[in-house]
């Protein structure tokens, strides 16, 4: 079996894997990083969003081997020690989550969104979260959370 090496949340990992191992399976099963979720099989729900070299991507639609040599950040690597990322804080402060299942992917997408758009308005946030489905919140408090975090992330 081929070998894959990558950096996940700052730590180097190397493993032998079957070529048909998806990145999300590698993270969840091999590394037991279960904060990245699988909510669909057509690359649409966004529950599996992580960062590959700083760009948000759906880990269910990337082979682990494609990420060879890459820097991966998952939800578990977003906080700096006990200091939550401003986006994580904002989701809690603004009731941006209910069941929590979509939340980890939503936060990872939102971090990339703010990185690219600075201080996005509501419409930009709503459009920018097109790749993430939430069934609980009606998105209103998610939009509020992202807006609030954008203030913190810039300032």
């Amino acid at each position, binding site marked *: 079996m081929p070998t894959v090496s990558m950096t996940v949340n700052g730590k180097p990992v190397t493993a032998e894997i079957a070529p048909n191992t*998806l990145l999300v399976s590698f993270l969840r099963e091999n590394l037991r990083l279960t904060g990245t979720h699988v909510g669909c099989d057509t690359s649409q729900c*966004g529950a599996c969003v992580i960062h590959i070299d700083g*760009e948000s991507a759906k880990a269910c*639609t*990337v*082979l682990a081997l494609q990420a*060879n040599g890459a820097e991966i950040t998952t939800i578990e690597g977003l906080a700096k020690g006990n200091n939550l990322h401003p986006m994580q804080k904002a989701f809690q402060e603004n009731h941006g989550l209910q069941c929590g299942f979509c939340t980890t992917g939503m936060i990872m*997408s939102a971090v990339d969104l703010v990185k690219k758009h600075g201080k996005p308005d509501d419409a930009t946030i709503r459009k920018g979260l*097109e*790749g993430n489905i939430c069934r609980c919140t009606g998105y209103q408090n998610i939009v509020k959370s992202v807006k609030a975090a954008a203030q913190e992330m810039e300032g």
Partner: protein
Amino acid sequence: MYHFEYQRPATLDEAVALLKEDCKLLAGGQTLLPTMKQRLAQPEMLVDLGAIETLRGVCPDDDKLAIGAMTTHAEVASKADIPALACLAAGIGDPQVRNRGTIGGSVANNDPAADYPAAVLGLNAQITTNKRVIAADDFFVDLFETALEENEIIINVTFPRPQAAAYVKFDNPASRYAIVGVFVAKTGGGVRVAVTGAGPCVFRHKDLETALTSNFSAQSVDTVTVSATGLNNDLHASAEYRANLIKVLTKRAVAQIGG
């Protein structure tokens, strides 16, 4: 996913040398991998083009813009200096798809509801492969079928600069593919109108082109009859509705350009 062998060549030549029967090229993977996950495709080998640096990048020139096959939609959206093309790329899929999906992959797949084929055909682009240069008008053959032969890899797509252009898309509300997308371009050789989503394969609407070439205005679009015959008829839209959208979106594209 079924089992397969995986190769990640560093150069185009290595990639070409690896090609064989039952082998598929892996570009961004945003369509291929979901298909394989559902066991609807069973290649014996995937040749991942991700490590071939020469296939990536946006290269502007005075009269044209060359985009490497492995350039992501997000890069095209932010770097392409043909605004209609950048705008089209910015509307493909969702941000995560745009961070991975590539122009070469999209064009080679020729999904009937994909956005890029409309730009390629509308702007009269050229597809350069390891073997030859293919004109857009010859490239898109039929449903998921292109002029590409086995052992042929797209290197880049070169877009001549239009005088003006616009792309207007009506999203499938579920998949966010195009129910209909219309790319209108004013070029030295007249107006080109390319329609995606509406038929089995992207196509040019000659009557609209003729009308708009002689009079570039919304009123001119009104004089054209868009037939529903041969258009897609599915769960999301009837052929009749698609025919209507072709006209409406063409008018909106013309208005954006300033007709």
